[in-house]
């Protein structure tokens, strides 16, 4: 039986509304980018829907005391709308989802955060960035994306993978499709594969001076952009991308109810795990309250909650701070915690201080895309075309 909520906002209407008010301002600023566009009825409608959507999610998190179930709605919507908007923009700009030699030779490829894993060794040894992007101009420039990666790593650690990454919502979503897993008891040690893969990717990129993960392994090429198929090499790459997407992002998460791509494969996820060590927000387990039912171990979609962690009182370094284990624990033994502060106290302060930056990050990445995605959907349903 669930004990009473840990949070003083839980079930308290006015307190929850009061704490949602700052989010009104943040959502307004970040959805509109500071420049509201109320030039058409569809623009106004999409803004109002997006604004209400995010503030309702945030309010419900406070009012119900549940984190993951509302986070996941926003996070999955972000992944779907990001793909829609990205693809439509590419088709508008280039006429297709594939990039050409011209785009490569003019260094116009948008820099994705996962490339960070491959540029570190070459930066040290060649003093340059091994990526065909622009340093400062255009969409997703290298400098602008690196600032974002550094800022988020310092602010949230690997919380990025449950609140900010515009790819993570894919396997977060597919892992929720079935109510019960078909494949049970997946060995949690698979999470270490992503660290081995990070090493392989970082070294292979350094030796070949090529972003090898982008060139050969990224499943999300399937829903963003890929090299135009012009020869056997590019055909092989496309087959690999689509196979990895189907297996790691769709089929295995559906069957296991785990985020297989993010929990076992993504090298950026592995790199971000280290940033959990330099971040004040963590998830802790109160061993006094824990009745050892192991529901959190079964629930954790990222293999971060394991038996040794339960006895240590904290999940593994790979924890993405999604809050799913916290929501599921019937003993209220798991909670967000701020390093240095006393355990077993000030649950509301710790959770609220974490939720503000985490949810703001979600709004920053998802807000504009959801808003514009709604405009695109309205256009599609009224004219039959996204263009």
């Amino acid at each position: 039986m669930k004990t009473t909520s840990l949070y003083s906002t839980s079930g308290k209407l006015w307190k929850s509304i009061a704490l949602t008010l700052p989010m009104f301002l943040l959502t307004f600023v970040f959805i509109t980018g500071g420049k509201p566009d109320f030039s058409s009825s569809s623009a106004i409608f999409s803004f109002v829907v997006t604004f209400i959507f995010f503030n309702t999610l945030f309010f419900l998190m406070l009012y119900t005391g549940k984190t993951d179930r509302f986070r996941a709605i926003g996070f999955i919507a972000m992944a779907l709308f990001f793909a829609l908007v990205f693809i439509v923009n590419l088709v508008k700009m280039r006429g297709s989802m594939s990039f050409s030699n011209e785009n490569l030779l003019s260094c116009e490829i948008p820099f994705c955060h996962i490339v960070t894993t491959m540029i570190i060794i070459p930066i040290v040894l060649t003093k340059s960035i091994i990526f065909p992007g622009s340093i400062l101009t255009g969409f997703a420039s290298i400098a602008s994306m690196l600032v974002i990666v550094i800022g988020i790593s310092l602010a949230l650690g690997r919380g990025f993978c449950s609140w900010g990454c515009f790819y993570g919502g894919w396997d977060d979503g597919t892992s929720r499709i079935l109510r019960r897993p078909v494949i049970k008891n997946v060995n949690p040690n698979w999470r270490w594969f992503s660290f081995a893969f990070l090493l392989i990717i970082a070294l292979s990129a350094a030796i070949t001076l090529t972003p090898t993960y982008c060139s050969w392994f990224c499943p999300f090429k399937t829903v963003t952009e890929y090299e135009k198929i012009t020869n056997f090499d590019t055909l092989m790459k496309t087959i690999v991308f689509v196979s990895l997407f189907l297996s790691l992002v769709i089929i295995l998460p559906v069957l296991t109810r785990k985020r297989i791509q993010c929990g076992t494969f993504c090298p950026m996820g592995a790199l971000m795990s280290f940033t959990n060590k330099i971040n004040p927000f963590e998830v802790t387990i109160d061993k006094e309250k824990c009745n050892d039912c192991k529901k959190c171990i079964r629930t954790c979609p990222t293999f971060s909650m394991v038996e040794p962690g339960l006895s240590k009182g904290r999940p593994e370094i790979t924890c993405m701070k999604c809050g799913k284990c916290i929501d599921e624990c019937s003993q209220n033994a798991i909670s967000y915690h701020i390093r240095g502060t006393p355990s077993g106290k000030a649950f509301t302060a710790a959770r609220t201080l974490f939720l503000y930056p985490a949810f703001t990050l979600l709004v920053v990445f998802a807000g504009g895309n959801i808003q514009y995605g709604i405009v695109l959907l309205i256009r599609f349903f009224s004219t039959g075309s996204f263009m």
Partner: protein
Amino acid sequence: MKKTLSIIGYIWAVLCLLLIPITFMGNNAFASMLAKLPFMKVNPIYSGGEVDRTVNHAGFKTTINKPVFEALIGESSKGFVQVKWTGDKMLPPIINDTIDYDNNGIRDFIIHIDTHTGKTELTPLDSHVLSLNISSKVKDSWLARINLLNPAK
């Protein structure tokens, strides 16, 4: 001590809370600062290297970059040179050019490009010139990279 740690923890958490809006609102300013760091340049394998010289012809100009022999440490035994042709008004339908990529007064290769079809023929005149790497229209110019052997290796 516990109280001090607790205060530090909360201050740290509040700073992180502020860091997210600051990162995004100040992104342009921070990115410009970051871009000034010495390592913030695209590797010549992707940028094509630094411009070495420009040769003017009737109706178009040829920009020859410095050869690129990038390796993680030192220089690679193989690399390429990037050459770009830009028309005064528009690209000529046929580009026929003889290039001395190392500027030693001796012609290194002849290149023939049909800019309508993209068909490119390379005739090496020097043993260090290997083959055509890529030939493509880029904005209002035509660009080719020619594979080379590193004479220093």
